[in-house]
């Protein structure tokens, strides 16, 4: 009897040893994987042109919900969308539509993106205040930035060589400039110096031969904004659609974004319509 039981036991052991071992190994494996933690934070990255709007919306939310965490970071439109694709942010601020390279990367990594327009703004070319030029046609701007015109004297200015300043290719403002000013047939002159918005403004404010461009909200007294095709970049001219270099500003997010992210995006849109003037942005289609 006892012997029989032991035999049965051994037989069981014989047949069960390997499966048990496999199960044991599998258990060890799964125990090593940390349990996924629910994230109670929203991370926003991207274009400087939309940062003031995102900051205002985020601070309002954190005031209402003190336990909430909403972070805002810059890095440009390209970095924002890249971070959205690689999972290091939840909302990307983009001052232009996604470029084909990033669209391909998202498809490659099996990430589906959605976008929404949150506001509009204008891109404004600017020069040193001592430069007498205050107006350029779209055609002249294109000829300057593709390198056809190289002296200020060719557009009614002093006999000085033109120093072009541009944003680099990951910038949404550059992308919009490419579409609105350079057009499909021209490419940016290889002579252009590439800078981010703040350094560009500092450079142009200290170099009378330089020309740069930025979002409307970046303009200040240190530089002289230019009229384009005779339309000065004033709030009313931009609102009424007379100023030609106007562009939509987007947020991008993952198609599977949870409800808190979507709610926050609606808050961004609402904040944009309520505070557009103080933020240097423009609401609606116009």
């Amino acid at each position, binding site marked *: 009897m006892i012997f029989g039981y032991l035999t049965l036991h051994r037989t069981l052991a014989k047949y069960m040893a*390997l499966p048990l071992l496999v199960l044991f190994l599998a258990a060890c494996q799964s125990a*090593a994987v940390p349990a996924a933690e629910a994230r109670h934070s929203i991370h926003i990255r991207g274009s400087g042109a939309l940062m003031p709007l995102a900051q205002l919306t985020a601070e309002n939310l954190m005031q209402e919900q003190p336990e909430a965490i909403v972070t805002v970071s810059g890095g440009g439109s390209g970095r924002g969308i890249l971070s959205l694709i690689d999972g290091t942010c939840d909302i990307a601020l983009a001052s232009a539509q996604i470029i084909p390279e990033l669209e391909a990367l998202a498809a490659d990594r099996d990430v589906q993106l959605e976008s929404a327009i949150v506001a509009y703004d204008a891109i404004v070319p600017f020069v040193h205040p001592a430069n007498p030029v205050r107006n350029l046609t779209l055609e002249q701007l294109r000829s300057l930035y593709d390198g056809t015109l190289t002296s200020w004297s060719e557009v009614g200015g002093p006999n000085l060589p033109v120093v072009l300043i541009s944003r680099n290719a990951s910038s949404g403002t550059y992308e919009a400039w490419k579409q609105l000013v350079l057009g499909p047939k021209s490419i940016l002159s290889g002579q252009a110096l590439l800078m981010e918005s703040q350094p560009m403004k500092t450079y142009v404010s200290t170099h009378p031969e330089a020309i740069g461009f930025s979002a409307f909200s970046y303009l200040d007294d240190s530089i002289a904004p230019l009229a384009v095709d005779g339309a000065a970049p004033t709030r009313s001219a931009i609102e009424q659609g007379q100023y030609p270099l106007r562009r939509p500003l987007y947020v991008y997010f993952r198609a599977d974004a949870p409800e808190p992210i979507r709610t926050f995006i609606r808050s961004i849109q609402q904040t944009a319509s309520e505070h557009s003037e103080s933020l240097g942005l423009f609401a609606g289609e116009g």
Partner: protein
Amino acid sequence: MKKQWRIVLMAGVTVLILLGWAIWSQLKPQTSYHTLLIGGSSTVHPYAEALAQAYTEAHPDFKIHCVTGGSTPGLLAVANDAIDLATMSRDLTEDEDGANLKNYLIGRDGLGFIVHPDNPVQNLSLAQLEAILAGEITDWSALAGISSTSMENTGAIPEPIQIISSPVDSNTFTIASDLLLLGEELPASTVYAADAADVQAKVAADPNAIGLVCLHEANASSRFLTINQVRISRETLLTLRYPLTHSFYLVLNLQHDRLSPDPATSNLGEWLLRFFKLDSEQLVQIRSEAILDFVDFVCSRDGQQVIESLGAVSVY
């Protein structure tokens, strides 16, 4: 006959169990026994060390080496796959950034300036602050935007500016160097306090003082100046609106094809790896998982508590 069979069977089972144990003890630890090399910003270094310590306490098989050398060398090293993770105390520039660099925001800190309660100054522009720290503005009355009447109203008229700094080996001083001093020294008249509490005490005792402290070092009586009209707070650091905000990043290279710096733990381990034809691709995979597991910890509640315990603002 029957007895011999049993012996063979028992021996077989024993061998299976032993082999299973051997595989488990050599291969399984292989996925967790790992050495990570983290390098970069000296500001983030104390945070990286504390995070590494907390992580290795929970994962005794893990070794993490943290080295300093600056954000830029750290980024270059990780971009060239020479280290596993770079710590950075600044944003990547557009030129440095690339599709293969994944950067995690892991914490924020901010540099604040406190003054005596009787000081009528409420706000400094970034330019004014830079001029004070460079020794170009040495007198409170020279600050634009302070009307003489508001100074008279207070009774005490602050005059020569007395800068009170944390010691040069403090984290606060490192942040000040990164954000404002950019390698320059503070004016010769600067008083270096023993620690943050001493900065507070010295500022509380001197109506002409301006003290450098991080947000977490402040106490209830600290009076912070707004900078460019923005008050330092957890919220303004999280949204980056406060101009003297420091962001801490962990950067990893998605395109690492280097093996672990510590691929095999023993000869038996190497033999088993060969025996089971674990190729280098799997080892790269193991390394990736080790890096990501550490990053997951840093972004988890536990990791963020380590960041908070050292004074930074948690971001998850």
